[in-house]
């Protein structure tokens, strides 16, 4: 699953540490999310969406696996 987290974070002028602090997760989690190595839980996805004040679909791009 791709996401626009890094792009949105930079647009807001927020560092990874600050975003991690606000979402109460580790900075490594933010890094992994931005690199696409880790997919968040639905709770964290909602927290991120609330932080940026946009919908989850605008941050996370769901792609069905190709057969």
């Amino acid at each position, binding site marked *: 699953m791709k996401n626009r987290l890094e792009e949105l974070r930079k647009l807001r002028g927020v560092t990874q540490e600050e975003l991690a602090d606000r979402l*109460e997760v*580790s900075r490594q989690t933010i890094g992994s999310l931005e690199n696409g190595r*880790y997919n*968040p839980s639905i709770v964290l996805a909602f927290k991120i969406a609330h932080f940026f004040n946009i919908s989850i679909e605008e941050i996370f791009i769901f792609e069905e696996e190709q057969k």
Partner: protein
Amino acid sequence: MKQQHKSYIFYMGILIFAIGLLLKFLIPESNEAWQSVPFVMTGFGAGITVVGLACIFRQKMIEKDPEKAKQYEIAEKDERNIQLREKAGYATWYITLFMLAILSLIFVMLDYKLQSFLTIGVLLIHVISLFVYIFIYNKKI
């Protein structure tokens, strides 16, 4: 609550260590089969005591520094860290299974009956415990 939990580990270590020392004097030298038990218990107890002490010191340090306490709490509750621990635990389960199987095979080949019996027993408990926890979590989740 956490502080109580850490102290519990420390006191448990002290207790095991003390029982080990006590057994050293209580087990007669003629009883060769039980001679190693006090050494194993004191060693095990000392190890747990050190771990308990380290936990208490860490807890004290965290209590003095609210910023560190917050970082520690975040690291504990971080969902990626939880997933990492779960994955590591699952991988370790397989490694333990493999090691127990190898050990059982060696004991069987050497015709060590008691050791074979014990290792195969532990191996079975190891496998059964996985299915028990799957059953328990299947009800909870």
